[in-house]
């Protein structure tokens, strides 16, 4: 997709667990399943490594959307990591919603190493969603806006 003037291009951070989702992203890559370049992936060992601080930090510094991908429940390389992540993110997202931050700026998706298609689909959907929400103005530090 070529860059066109004035088009809103969101900044999107995707945390991917090393074992499933990062590999899923690799598979999307080797299967040439495209998704917008707005998505940048950060590798973490497990979805349970993702601290709510990281997610808020991303928004602080100007992210428009943050997505966390991990192994499907039951498939965690560390047996239980994604279950903890699931509870943490459930609560965090609920709090963000409560504070009036638009739903959909945050998302959790379970993507296995075999789900290249799902990875790319998820990212396409997520970017669309963030584009429809527009720029993140409610949860960023204004000092980072210029």
């Amino acid at each position: 997709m070529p860059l066109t003037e004035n088009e809103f291009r969101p900044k999107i951070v995707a945390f991917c667990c090393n074992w499933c989702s990062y590999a899923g992203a690799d598979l999307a890559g080797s299967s040439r399943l495209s998704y917008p370049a707005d998505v940048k992936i950060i590798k973490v060992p497990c979805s349970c490594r993702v601290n709510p601080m990281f997610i808020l930090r991303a928004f602080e510094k100007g992210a428009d959307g943050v997505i966390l991908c991990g192994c499907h429940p039951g498939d965690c390389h560390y047996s239980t990591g994604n279950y903890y992540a699931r509870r943490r993110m459930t609560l965090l997202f609920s709090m963000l919603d409560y504070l009036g931050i638009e739903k959909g700026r945050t998302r959790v998706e379970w993507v296995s190493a075999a789900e290249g298609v799902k990875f790319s689909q998820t990212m396409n959907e997520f970017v669309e969603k963030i584009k429809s929400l527009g720029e993140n103005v409610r949860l960023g530090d204004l000092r980072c806006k210029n």
Partner: protein
Amino acid sequence: MQRIGVFVCHCGSNIAATVDVKKVVETVLSEPGVCHAEDYPYMCSEAGQMKILEAVKEKKLTGIVVCSCSPRMHEATFRKAAERAGLNPYMVEIANIREHCSWIHKDMEEATKKAVILARAAIAKVNLNTPLQAGESRVTKRALVIGGGIAGIQTALDIADAGYEVDIVEKTPSIGGRMSQLDKTFPTLDCSACILTPKMVEAAAHEKINIYTYSEVDKVTGFVGDFTVDIRKKARSVDSAKCTGCGVCQEKCPSKKSLNEFNRGLNTRSAIYTPFAQAIPNVPVIDRDACIKFKTGKCGVCEKVCQAGAIDYNQKDEIITEKYGAIVVATGFDTIKLDNYDEYAYNQSKDVITSLELERIMNAAGPTKGHLERLSDGKAPKEMVFIQCVGSRCSDNRGKSYCSKICCMYTAKHAMLIRDKYPDVNVTVFYIDVRTPGKNFDEFYRRAVEEYGVNYVKGQVGKVAPLPNGKLLVQGSDLLDNKQILKEADMVVLATAIEPEASVRQIATMLTASIDTNNFLTEAHPKLRPVESPTAGVFLSGVCQGPKDIPETVAQAGAAAVKAIGLLAKDKLTTNPCTAKPDELLCNGCSQCANVCPYGAITYEEKEVNDHGIRETRRVAQVNGALCQGCGACTVTCPSGAMDLQGFSNRQIIAEVDAICR
């Protein structure tokens, strides 16, 4: 500040066709810490790696960023290259500009921009990288095998033959397992006991093997190379050292009404018993629930008749604590309960039996002394029906979704044996598919059809109904003839699905080994590491990992043994350095991290600390680097940030976030 070198790979045209690599090189040069950047067609080639070596030397680099393919491809390669250049291997980070960039984007400007951002994130991370040293831990040269069936015995023998001590823990009074209950084995029709018993004897006699029967694993702590296990030796009420195995006690025991587990409850046994004649050890146990002495205080017959004076009613459970370097799980299987399958009348008629029960009936030591007869009236059957896939391949919640794998073959075996021994008996097998992949397997099945005249009907049975005349009405379908079949049978044999032994859940929990929805233990990798559990130092042998027949079980047992031997052969283990690390000065000692650690790697210590001049004793978290696998669950649970993950530290991840969002 680090001195970082950035190396951008073209990957032929894989990257360079979409990402302007020169532009990336140019742009990253202005990033903090970067003092060298270059591009090369194939960074992973020897020549490419030499570029790294040269740059490290010339520019005195302290950190490396390689913009290339996924770290899953070549992270190890570049880490080794860094090591050759004299750097710590963990000073390398990969920016994945192939799978995550050039391969999924088409527009060069956009892809280049993204590649720069990914490189920046990696640079920001490397700026905070610290050299990490893989730790070492010792290896106890002793293995534990949980389960004394053919899988456990074979594993133990193989490990012991390699010269290491092995302990087998078996929960029943004898080793032997399911195989000892079988009459004959496919596809050779060997007598099961004839091939198993020598193995049992060999194991018992092996100087490196120590067998704990009638024992269970109570507690497991520690980690790969250094497990500590509590084994509960249940009170046998018979002193093994004194017992001569003469068997008089069993003969004289007045309580003979207990269901005989070995014969699948088809007949009864005495309260003091050995499960079967060839039991090892040949020392009986007293079933305290059935024993009159234990129930009423009176009796004591066995004590009176025992010439060796081996009966000891006061024996107590004994806990043995032992250290092991490796643990092999070989807990085996059981058949599923058929309570949910009313249509097969298993609970209504004694003449509807499972295949494992048929094994016992066919066996000379079984409840009918090997005569094929109906359990209801002892009459010889004339019509026998076998039903396949009972509880297997069921996607409803009554059965198991998987194929139990062994049923097609043993049913062919049963059919063949019956037709051979009792040619006047008609045998009909209802099947969905006959699955016979395996050496000489299909030939075996075809023999049953072609030589022994077994009637195979493609179709499933819908209902088995006991008739007033004592027979069983079997209503099945023949899909090939498109007919519904009504057949009066004398006996119906159900090829019942198998499932992992119930106790495996508890054992998996103790070992922190993962388990799937069907209770099968999970492999570290389904294809490439099929006999290892994801938990280091724990190996899988036999059906606990998935349905298998005997040859496969034995093969896997050997494989598990080799893996265990490979571990035991090492004097020291190097551990993953990307482990959690607490900052003792910040630790609150609240235990939340320990609560989420799946490996039990976190313990607490009362420790004297010097917090900027304040000396006090505090409860602080300690991470065992050998146990920790580096998931990071603890780091998020820790509110003060005292717990951090080396290699993926809070500040490193935040630096990546910042670099991406700026």
